[in-house]
């Protein structure tokens, strides 16, 4: 069996994620010895003779904790070619998961991607490094829409710089679900009705509980015990009708196993780009608007490489390539200047004002509220 290099492996993996299926040849390549050697090569660089001279002060690797379908893999390749630093990308399903890893210690991350509402908690718990902006010349605050940069600054100190922003709605395969839903009420009713067994929700308490709260018209951020009890009742009632509880829903949507899923902007863009029947819906009752950030955890092993990676990804040209692939809107006007007109007019990326207005930014309390955490855990264990 022949071995495959990392680039080919990523391409194959990418293709299979997109189509949800594999050709026999790809399957052999992905599952056989090819994988073993690719994984070995990626994790044990010492085993292979270094192919290029490394920039001495950056080291040879950087570990990034991020979200599914959130980057242009090619950018990491280019970064490795430019700096000799290879990026190890870890994907997570929720901010709680990220927080738990950092609280437990020894995460091994150099860069992570927290969402707006979590940053104050990271600061309180002393888990996040203040940023030395002199090492991030590509971060030019004036170029950004301030709504999406402000949460990165706590008590006057910048802890995080903006990656991109987005919304949380749901994606519908309109070839299978023909009801044209426009509300969260319709999402849950369809789940417990015609789309039974075909709906996915995030493995993420902020959005799954928040969007269940919207069914009753409560605030997305509610921590009121009575309102949360209503939300839990809905979740438990809907659970037998769900296809899965998973924040990585693209493969199942693409394969047709799932017809409807809670969905972030970029996944909506990516699905719609490849399959026009995939429709992204923002519940008219509201829901979440958010912005994600790049940050460096306390005790990062490769801080210099972390700064280099963040600065590289903030470069407007690099960022524009990211946006073209992940389909989340950028708050950076320099990046937007480089994007094609049709992307800037895309209703998935830039929803109409009347849909944006009722959306709420996540509140810090939702992250630490013990009841919310327990409700999601109970819902999953039910």
């Amino acid at each position, binding site marked *: 069996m022949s071995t495959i290099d990392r680039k080919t492996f990523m391409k194959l993996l990418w293709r299979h994620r997109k189509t949800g299926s594999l050709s026999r040849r790809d399957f052999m390549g992905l*599952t*056989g*010895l090819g994988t*073993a050697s690719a*994984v070995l090569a990626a994790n044990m660089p010492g085993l292979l003779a270094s192919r290029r001279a490394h920039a001495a002060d950056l080291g040879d690797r950087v570990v990034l904790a991020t979200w599914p379908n959130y980057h242009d893999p090619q950018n990491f390749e280019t970064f490795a070619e430019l700096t000799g630093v290879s990026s190890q990308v870890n994907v997570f399903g929720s901010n709680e998961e990220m*927080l*738990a890893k950092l609280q437990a210690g020894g995460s091994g991350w150099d860069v992570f991607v927290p969402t707006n509402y979590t940053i104050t908690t990271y600061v309180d718990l002393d888990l996040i490094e203040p940023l030395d902006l002199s090492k991030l010349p590509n971060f030019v605050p004036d170029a950004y829409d301030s709504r999406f940069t402000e949460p990165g600054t706590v008590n006057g100190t910048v802890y995080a710089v903006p990656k991109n922003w987005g919304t949380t709605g749901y994606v519908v395969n309109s070839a299978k679900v023909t009801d044209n839903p426009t509300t969260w009420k319709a999402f849950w009713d369809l789940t417990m009705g015609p789309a039974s067994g075909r709906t996915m929700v995030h493995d993420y308490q902020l959005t799954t509980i928040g969007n269940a709260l919207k069914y009753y018209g409560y605030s997305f951020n509610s921590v009121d015990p009575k309102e949360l009890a209503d939300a839990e009742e809905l979740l438990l009632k809907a659970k037998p009708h769900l296809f*899965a509880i998973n924040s990585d829903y693209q493969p199942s949507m693409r394969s047709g196993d799932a017809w409807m899923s809670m969905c972030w902007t970029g996944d909506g863009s990516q699905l719609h780009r490849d399959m026009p029947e995939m429709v992204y819906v923002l519940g008219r009752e509201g829901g979440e608007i958010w912005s994600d950030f790049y940050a460096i955890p306390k005790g990062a092993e490769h801080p210099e490489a972390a700064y280099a990676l963040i600065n590289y990804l903030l470069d407007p040209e690099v960022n524009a390539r990211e946006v073209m692939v992940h389909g989340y809107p950028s708050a950076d006007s320099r990046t937007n200047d480089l994007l094609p007109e049709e992307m800037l007019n895309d209703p998935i990326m830039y929803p109409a004002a009347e849909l944006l207005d009722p959306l709420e930014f996540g509140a810090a309390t939702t992250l*630490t509220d013990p009841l919310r*955490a327990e409700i999601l855990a109970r819902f999953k264990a039910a």
Partner: protein
Amino acid sequence: MAKAQQSDGSRSVVTAMLLLPTTLWFLLLLVLPLVVILVFSLGERGPAGGYQPAFTLAQYANLPARLKAFTNTLTLAPLGTVLCLLFAYPLAYFLGVRASARAKPLLLALVVVPFWTSFLIRTYAWIFILGGRGIPALLAQFGLDDVRLINTPFAVLVGIVYGYLPLMVFPIYVSLEKLDKRLLEASADLGASPLRSFLQVTLPMSLPGIVTGCLLVFILLMGEYLIPAILGGGKVFFVGNALVDLFLQSRNWPFGSAVAVALVVIMLLAVTGYLYFASRGRRREDVSVI
């Protein structure tokens, strides 16, 4: 005499030194963490998650909130063990009794081959086989529409049998391989049918392998996390998954510790009971233990 005493003494020193690493390992990596978990299980969740010292049994009182995870584990783990046994026995029998000496090394190697690939990737592959474009699509060709396999207990059982089969095959194979063929000839000479020979000679002789294999598979299954997470879609939940959630999502270490302690207790009871009945059964058969 003095010489003999001296050599006895040095022998016990050597024994102690040889056992030292194991003892340290045992104390540091098993007993100590267990003590930590016990202490944590009596505490409270910190304001931002984690552990906060306290002395309360509230966590144990809250255990019923994870009842479904326990019942799932306690039905699917034994069921998976039995299924593994049913699938593994014929294979082990063929390998140990029937396969030619020339083919045996190759066949044994084939049983091991799956271990060359990551368990994660092999389990992931079942998503495609059991997903809408896999077996259900095939069944649709024969008019069986809308068969859903993925994210069901069935899918989890398939993953269990697939993943754990070799662990059951090997112990049974080893006990069958030692089977003295002359016993079977004697049994046949005395007029026993092949079935009777199997039930009264082969099966009892392979019992130690069955006991070991079942124990191995069952204990690992009780702590299983990966297969339900991947093939259960977050819907078929094991205690292992509940633990991951409590530690890695809701950051409720005390409750997670209480769930872990409960799992350890249940497992100890189950394994002790199993070994007790297994040894009694074997004694009744009056077959010497290998």
